[in-house]
């Protein structure tokens, strides 16, 4: 069936982009042990940066990565350093600091509403662009070119982050901190410096996800919320803290969302996604690739 194949391909492509949006979420959780509720807002900020960069320069959207990645890295780095770190320090005795979660919720509201104030409630899409509306024709199937680019970006980013964590000394320091921050500190690793860097990298991946979305999706102040909900499901599905798990979890959701509606109403396909989320929480709360036992 050519239809099923076409829908599956679309699902995998779109799903990998969902996975990319969740990558930073899972990374930040893995290291800081904090669910970052502001992650969708960081994605939104990235989308605005990319939108304006593309609109003002007229460049190919992926060229703006040169700008978006450093801007978002620094934004995340200093957001953690200035806003979140003091709360962390105040609760240094607690393993999973609840107040930090509340602070990230505050950051989410502040960012969304600031954007609303500055740019208004308008919906924006980039016009006149080499990627907008491009489709690849393949044996009677139509495949979205911007999503194909997004897929490549997602796989490359996940691979790069994985290699960085495995092969570099900074990556090892990050992993050490995520395993046991006290022991890591005793070994001379600066815990909060690592937190800043992890938050920066997480935010930068949200920036990359933003660049993949801008060619075919709308930009508006509350756009992050839509991807946030999916992000949480993906992270649970793939396993909290797992890089590969985020991409694979995203693809599973993407395929359900894309193939499901051909056999039932789209609203039911969404129901299946949430059902799967609950099933995983009941049966395998650590997700596909998560660590079974908390360290």
């Amino acid at each position, binding site marked *: 069936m050519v*239809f099923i194949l*076409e*829908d599956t391909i*679309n699902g995998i492509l*779109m799903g990998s982009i*969902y996975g990319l949006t969740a990558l930073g979420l899972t990374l930040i959780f893995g290291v800081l042990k904090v669910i970052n509720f502001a992650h969708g807002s960081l994605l939104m900020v990235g989308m605005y940066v990319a939108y304006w960069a593309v609109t003002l320069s007229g460049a190919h959207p992926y060229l703006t990565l040169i700008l978006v990645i450093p801007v978002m890295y620094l934004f995340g780095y200093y957001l953690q350093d200035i806003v979140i770190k003091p709360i962390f320090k105040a609760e240094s005795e607690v393993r999973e600091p609840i107040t930090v979660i509340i602070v990230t919720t505050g950051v989410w509201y502040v960012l969304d509403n600031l954007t609303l104030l500055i740019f208004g*409630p*308008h*919906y*924006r*899409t980039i*016009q006149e662009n080499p990627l907008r*509306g491009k*489709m690849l024709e393949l044996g009677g199937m*139509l495949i*979205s070119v911007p999503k194909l680019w997004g897929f490549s970006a997602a796989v490359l980013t996940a691979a790069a982050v994985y290699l960085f964590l495995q092969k570099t000394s900074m990556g090892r320091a990050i992993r050490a901190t995520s395993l046991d921050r006290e022991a890591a500190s005793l070994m001379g690793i600066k815990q909060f410096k690592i937190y800043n860097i992890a938050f920066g990298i997480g935010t930068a991946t949200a920036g990359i996800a933003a660049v993949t979305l801008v060619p*075919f*999706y*709308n930009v*508006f102040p509350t*756009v992050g919320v*839509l*991807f946030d*909900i*999916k992000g949480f499901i993906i992270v649970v599905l793939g396993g909290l803290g797992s890089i590969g798990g985020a991409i694979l979890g995203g693809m599973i959701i*993407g395929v359900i*969302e*894309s*193939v*499901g*509606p*051909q056999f039932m*109403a*789209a*609203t039911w*396909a*969404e129901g299946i996604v949430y059902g799967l989320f609950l099933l995983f929480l009941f049966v395998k709360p650590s997700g596909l690739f998560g660590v079974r036992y908390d360290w």
Partner: protein
Amino acid sequence: MKKPIKEIGVCSAVLWVLTMALGAGSVCLAQDKVVKVGNIIPLSGPSASVGQQGKNAREMAVEEINAAGGIKSLGGAKLVMLYTDSESKPEKGVAEAERFINTEKVHVLTGCWNSAVTYPTTAVAERYGIPFIVPVSVADKITEQGFKTVFRIAAKDSWWTRDQFAFLRDMEKEFNAKLEKIAFVYENGDWGKGFAEQWKELAKKGDYKVVLDEPYPSTATDLSPIVQKIKRANPDVLLLVSNAADAILLTNTLADYRVKLKAIIGSGGGHADPSFLQAAGKNAQYLFDIVEWETDVNKPGAKEANEKFKSRYGYNLAGESVDAYLAMYVLADAMERAASLDPVKIREALATTNLGSGRGMIVGYDAVEFDKTGQNKHASLVMVQINDIGKGMERITVWPKNARRAGYQPVFPMP
């Protein structure tokens, strides 16, 4: 000790007489020269923006009516406007209606924009027999309570879908085309599902074949599965109910997947959002949408009224404000014929309204005439087509035919 008391007595007697005389005089004046109109509208809270638009439109109309000599059959009586804020709360609307009727002694009430406020408030007016003009509150049930004093100018909820199908029929006739297969795609909320229910009925009556009936979550981040479903169902006509983000995404994705349709029809909402045209751009070309009113409606005086309104308040007239503007002219017309301030006579006059011309008639339809329930039976909506005729994408009124923008030929079916 006696003298001062006497003096005070005299003074107070004089004062009392004076007060009586003045009071009587002002009562006389009120009875002869003034029509008191009590307006209950949301001026704060979530609907404050539309409430203010309605107030501005009323002010502009009343100024024009009074400047033109007021109600001539009442010796040039002026319309006097009293406003109160409903805060979009039903209980506030009810309390203010009581106050207007008992304390302010208003002759007519208007309001309340929010259907939830209008519904109980009209019951107060009915109890006292005071005529209540509803410029716009769309819930069907407002004119279905068996009340004698309620008069609604705007089209009711169920007429939106009715007009979408009437439009389809008219297009088939005008362009000698045959539309058979029809698809419904709508957001999965009260609004979308309510429309879909009515569409199904209308499709059955109109002998259309429904090839797709698909609700979708408005929060969807990818609508290509829905678009694929539309493409595979291969309908002639696609009817949509969408919020803004999904309207843009659907329009762009339909273009990406090269879905060929004869017509796409929106239901206002997201398709009427100011950012829709900008964000969907060329992909929105030839799309039809239903609205209450559009600035280019081809009616005498419409353009001038809009320009005057815009220069005074800084924004265009819209469905809500046009209905409020027209309501004041309907009232003036009824008062002229009633030639009395007796609520019974005013009600009689309103019930026999047949207003087809005049400064207030800038709506897309031909006349204001109320049926037995008090619903304006001619009220209809207008259909616009999005097209570029040299000034970028814009919304162009195409239906009803007598309201169509002069010189514009709708593009149908979509090329």
